[in-house]
């Protein structure tokens, strides 16, 4: 059942935390809300969960309008950043809690709890209190507790951010595998772009209470539409251009060619560092500029080079070279190519 969100507005006093947010989550997908701190990710998640009441807008799950359904009747599973395991109950009791609330029979509960504990590989820890479990184990129990009642939607608010790097990596794969196996529609909040890229089918980049761009990770990386998304998903060279009378963008005194039907509607173009070509001095052609190497940083598998076009010495272009052999030296005269296919128009 698809989740559909239309025009959600949420205000906290004078602050607009969510400013007319709309999105669609197809059934069974894994979606990440990605954005800087304070952009409204948690708020959006809480509105979906029903823990926060939106000032305007509509949330639908399939045909059902959820706006008037209280949180406890939505049957959504939530995993909070702070685990929020009930400290007075064992792992097994925690997992059983939601089933008891929903009126499962005793044998059904016992069976389900056992299956869940096996699923998260904590069958031996069933009777431990949360305080006796490690952070990673606690988070797994929280996950099991959330999915035990067969929720129609799983909501995760930065579930991994309190864990150390190694456990985090493990759990990433585990959560993703579990989600695939159960086919459960899942929304996860994160501010870690690597996490979002590696886990999600669909990434929603948020900024200042709005959705900047939504798409598959590879599309967001390859074709960011705004400078914000470009910079949030990896590094991007920003190039300021003038627009000539014929509508073509002009950079360093030369008109630039864009791919296909792309139009420079703004004065900023972007290109990823690994898409820039470094050529020998004197090379000529479309989008090729004579330039000078300013900086070279050797990092093993890649080398970072900064070069400035001679006609625009204030612009530093970051270039990533793979393999060490061709690295130039500082001060070398070179040429840089900005392939038309890799140039993006940013708003």
């Amino acid at each position, binding site marked *: 059942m698809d989740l559909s969100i239309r025009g959600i507005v949420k205000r906290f006093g004078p602050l607009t935390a969510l400013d007319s947010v709309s999105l669609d989550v197809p059934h069974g997908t894994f979606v990440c809300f990605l954005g800087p701190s304070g952009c409204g990710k948690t708020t959006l998640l809480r509105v979906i969960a029903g823990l926060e009441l939106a000032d305007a807008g509509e949330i639908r799950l399939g045909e059902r309008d959820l706006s008037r359904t*209280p949180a406890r*009747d939505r049957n959504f599973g939530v995993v*909070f950043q702070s685990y929020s395991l009930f400290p*007075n109950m064992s792992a097994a009791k925690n997992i059983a*809690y939601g*089933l008891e*609330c929903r*009126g499962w029979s005793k044998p059904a509960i016992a069976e389900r709890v056992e299956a869940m504990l096996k699923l998260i590989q904590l069958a031996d820890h069933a009777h431990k209190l949360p305080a006796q479990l490690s952070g990673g184990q606690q988070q797994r129990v929280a996950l099991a507790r959330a999915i035990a009642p067969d929720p129609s939607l799983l909501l995760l608010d930065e579930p991994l951010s309190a864990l150390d790097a190694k456990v985090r990596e493990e759990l990433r794969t585990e959560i993703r595998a579990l989600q695939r196996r159960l086919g459960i529609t899942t929304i996860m909040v994160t501010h870690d772009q690597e996490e979002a890229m590696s886990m999600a089918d669909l990434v929603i980049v948020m900024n200042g209470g709005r959705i900047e761009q939504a798409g598959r990770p590879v599309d967001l990386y390859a074709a960011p539409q705004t400078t914000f998304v470009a910079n949030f998903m990896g590094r991007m060279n920003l190039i300021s251009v003038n627009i000539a009378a014929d509508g073509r963008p002009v950079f360093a005194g030369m008109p630039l060619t864009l791919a296909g039907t792309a139009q420079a509607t703004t004065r900023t173009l972007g290109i990823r560092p690994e898409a820039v070509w470094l050529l020998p001095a004197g090379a000529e052609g479309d989008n090729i500029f004579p330039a000078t190497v300013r900086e070279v940083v050797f990092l093993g598998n890649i080398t970072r080079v900064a070069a400035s076009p001679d006609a625009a010495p204030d612009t530093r272009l970051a270039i990533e070279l793979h393999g060490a052999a061709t690295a130039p030296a500082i001060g070398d005269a070179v040429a840089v190519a900005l392939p038309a296919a890799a140039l993006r128009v940013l708003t």
Partner: protein
Amino acid sequence: MTAAAHPGEAPAPTGFFSSDRFAGYLLTAAVLLPMLAFLVLPLSAILLYSLRGPGGIGLENFTHTFGAPRFWTLVVNSVVMSVVSTVGTVVLAYGYAYGLARAKVPFTGLWRIVALLPLFAPSLVQAQGLILLVGRNGVFNRFLGFDIDIYGFWGVVISNLLAAFPYAFLILSAALAVADGRLYESAEALGARPLRIFRTVTLPATRYGIAAACFVSFTLVITDFGNPMVIGGDFNVLATEVYNQVIGQAQFGLGAVIGVVLLLPAALGKIIEKRIARKQHALITAQSKPLVIRPALGRDVAWSAFVVAVGVLIISVLAIVIVASFVRLWPYNMTLTLRHYEFDVQNGTAPIWNSIFVSFASAIAGVALAGLCAIVVQKVRTPLSGPLSLMAILPSAVPGMVLGLGYVLAFNAAANPLNVLYGSFALIIILNVYYNHSQAFLITSTSLNQIGGSFDEASTMLGASMTRTLGKITLPLIWPTLLGVGVFYFMRSMVSLSAVIFLINPSTQVAAVSVLQLSDRGAVNQAAAFSVCIMAVVVGCLALVRLVLVATGHRNITLIR
């Protein structure tokens, strides 16, 4: 939906007026209605009666009272006595707390308990002990050849000073405990002498604590009524005047006027104290580091001497009461005896059992009502949450005597359907519940805040109703706090005198009132025996509950407040 065929399918959406909403309003009503009946109504009755004279509603009572020279004498007496007492208690308590916090005094834990001892007895025990020490027939005048006249101004000042000491001490030692070690290190590194460090670092950091201690002590002292009754002699204050007007002459209107007058400094003090408390919190930051006390012989000896001196004073006033309860006839026949514990006076041991019963019932009712109130204010969002939390802390600005008078005025009236409660234990218990309501409410709220709302939300998302969350999650998590609140109620109800004095009749006599009446009649030894029983019960209760808490692994619950 995959879950459709599953036994775990969610119930059909129940709409906006779900049962949680209904339960919320039900709980709100359960808290709000008794509060209106037993807090707002009595306070309104005081105001109403103060305005109602023989000639109808008006300021007649006020002009009549304010026009009498005697009233202004009482005001001057009350204010001067309270100021002197407050200054004394804050200075002594500051020194005592400072010595314990900033010098190496041996047996720190013991001296902390000593400072709190006065809380375990009705305040008038201080006057009682003082009389046994330096009264007409006291140790000093009788046996050591002194000629001290303690009755009157100084007697009241000193006994109130001792009674207020633990309150000031608790506030000041909390203020001194939040010292930021970094400040002291940098002051020392800059070469500042100890006195200079005190003036430039310690004093500014604790000035909010000092101000709060002043207001709390002043309010306690100006509204205390037992001490001036017992040791005041001809020295009268506003609090005793209320008693005389109401009990002696049935002048309810005039009593109510003075009640309103007493309400003013208490309410004002409370408001200022709350403002101050808010600022105190900002002083300590996450980077603060605790202050480490290094030994320094001269300083340590000096502070130890001071702490011991004050501690011995506190102990001796209480100890002499215990001694007096065991001698045949103070001071004439000092042979040891247990006959005062036979209680062949008045109602025998009934007042003690009454006290225990009333205190126990107050503890249970108090935990239920004040705890529920805190839960409702924090967890149930209704338009009434705001007014409710305001009402919940209202009693902290109301002197016990004033609230007690309000109860008489409100429930003695035949027109009030709750009039049936008048003269029963139930009303005394309810009075105790609401008299101590604000602290109990705040303790529970703080504990709920520390737990935070995320367990509630987790429970809600798992499909639990509000009442299930309350029963399965919230209560199991805060029970140690609620136990602490119960102890607080029990202690306060055991020792409270001024609040219940107007509601007592021979069949509902409580021990604290017996102490007053027996002292009044000159039955020194029996009065002492009653006081000792009260202290023993309070100490026994504290010990028992501490044992339970330690046994269940809850060591960090404060019991004495």
